[in-house]
């Protein structure tokens, strides 16, 4: 016994500590147990982080955005509906904060962009999902993915060098106007809408199409009367997702829309949106001043409206699942 112990102690390179635990797999069980906990902590932590991010964004922007009403005592109603934005007293020496031109500009750009993009996008989706599945998959799918990937400033730059001069020549004025902004954003959201719409059309079961062909419907009748109504609310979801992207777009619109503080009277007038006024003025105002606070309030309006978009999309998808 004694000899044995000495031999083990003298054996070079071997750990004198028990190998029993390892042999029986006990140590491994222990380590694994810890790794299980560790893994769970990492994973639950990341999920928690996502919640923290959303709550923090909402909270911080709300607190900062309400400053102009709570601290600076601006009337909420006159802020939302007022049509004169005059933060630096440049006109008649009277400061006024009426954000309606920007709210109107944002909504107008969003709606016009949807009007331009929807027919082409849905048509393209129908082509991909119904008419030419192979071709759609091999050619149009990559086209759409690349279009989605092109950065928004590049769309803005093209708007600036192509659409604005075109407007200037054909419709007069400076060329910077609401229509140019809507066109740029419309092209931007085109691929998003098309790819989601194509997905929702593909989800329509084939049995419906076969039934329609069986009673002698043409391809178009099948698409128009059967497939599109069946995909109904997901198609609307696609369009609304596109609109929410159009609503939040900042720099591309800013480059072409003209950025005036006044209400546009036609689509050929320059205008401004919530995002453009924020990007333009944020750097010129000092933190904590009233002109700065009202910009944060505009940001809050932006946040609230994007929440409304999210709610609409959720409602549509819930109705679809129900």
């Amino acid at each position: 016994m004694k000899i044995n112990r000495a031999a083990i102690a003298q054996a070079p390179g071997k750990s004198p500590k028990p190998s029993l635990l390892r042999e029986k797999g006990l140590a491994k069980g222990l380590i694994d147990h810890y790794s299980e906990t560790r893994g769970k902590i990492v994973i639950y932590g990341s999920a928690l982080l996502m919640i923290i991010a959303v709550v923090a964004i909402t909270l911080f922007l709300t607190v900062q955005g309400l400053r102009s009403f709570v601290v600076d005592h601006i009337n909420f109603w006159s802020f939302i509906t007022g049509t004169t934005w005059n933060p630096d007293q440049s006109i008649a020496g009277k400061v006024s904060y009426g954000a309606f031109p920007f709210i109107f500009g944002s909504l107008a750009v969003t709606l016009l962009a949807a009007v331009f993009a929807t027919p082409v996008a849905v048509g393209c989706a129908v082509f991909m999902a119904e008419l030419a599945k192979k071709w759609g998959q091999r050619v149009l799918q990559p086209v759409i993915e690349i279009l989605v990937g092109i950065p928004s400033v590049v769309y803005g730059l093209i708007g600036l060098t192509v659409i604005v001069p075109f407007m200037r020549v054909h419709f007069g004025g400076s060329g910077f106007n609401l229509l140019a902004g809507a066109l740029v954003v419309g092209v931007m959201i085109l691929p998003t809408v098309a790819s989601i719409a194509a997905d929702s059309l593909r989800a329509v079961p084939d049995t419906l199409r076969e039934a329609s062909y069986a009673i002698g419907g043409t391809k178009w009748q099948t698409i128009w009367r059967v497939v599109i109504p069946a995909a109904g609310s997901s198609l609307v979801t696609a369009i609304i997702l596109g609109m929410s992207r159009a609503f939040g777009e900042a720099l591309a619109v800013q480059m072409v829309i003209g950025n005036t503080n006044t209400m546009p009277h036609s689509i050929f007038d320059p205008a401004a949106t919530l995002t453009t006024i924020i990007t333009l003025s944020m750097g010129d105002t000092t933190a904590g001043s009233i002109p700065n606070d009202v910009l944060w309030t505009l940001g809050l309006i932006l946040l609230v409206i994007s929440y409304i978009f999210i709610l609409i999309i959720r409602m549509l998808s819930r109705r679809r699942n129900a």
Partner: protein
Amino acid sequence: MSSKVTNRIALSLIVLCAVIMAGILAALLGYILVNGVTSISWHFLTSESSTFQAGGGIKDQLWNSFYVLIITMILTVPIGTSGGIYLAEYARPGKMTSFIRSCVEVLASLPSIVVGMFGMLVFVDYFQFHFSVLSGALALTVFNLPVIVRVTEDGFRSLSLHQKEGGLALGLTHWHTIKTILLPAAFPSILTGIILSAGRVFGESAALLFTAGMSTPSLDFTNWNPAAPTSPLNLFRSAETLSVHIWAVNTSGIIPDIQTVANGSAAVLVICVLLFNLLARALGKVINQKLSGKS
């Protein structure tokens, strides 16, 4: 009008839509590349931008874009993949899970300028990171996280249940199964998604305007000490990225060669995004072939 004629007209209109879509891409790419490639030169890529003279380049902006992208990815990929794994493997249906899902959805659909404002409020002012690479990367993390989460979750969900059951049947713990069996199997699709999202991050501008700033100190590319104020590696210096540069040059630039610089930068940006796209496709194909043993 007979239904046959309507059919023909309607179908040709649909084909027209598809042609318009492909045409727009061709026109966009053609315009950017034709206009921009002529102004790309070695000098343009490797010289500093100038604030008022002609002949400036985009060296610093290009470096900043890649640097912000890398920092963002270092932050996003671990958190995003774990979040995706949570949703795919651990989340039980219930109030909490649906709340997390809503959070991901909200993060994904927030306008990027709102994320930028939040970044300005929290990272730039509250944590005193100022306009810096770090603030920019953190803001982009908020923006990119939901994308990676979705990609990971989809990757895990597309795996067959046999793999997981096999692991569990061998007596592995759930986490060990995920780590050693499921994650490697889902890796190709996750990687493809990550590269595609990298293209998006690379071109993002509005969120960076208020976080990474609109200027760059003149960088000293011989000084790689991360603490030095002019070091390219410094996390706490302001960093104008390429896409912000395009915007800034066009809206407030006073250099005489705006067109050249803007077109050249746009071309570089688009070429990079295209490369990301091609890389993702090629990698996906190669890994797929390896896995299915058809190499």
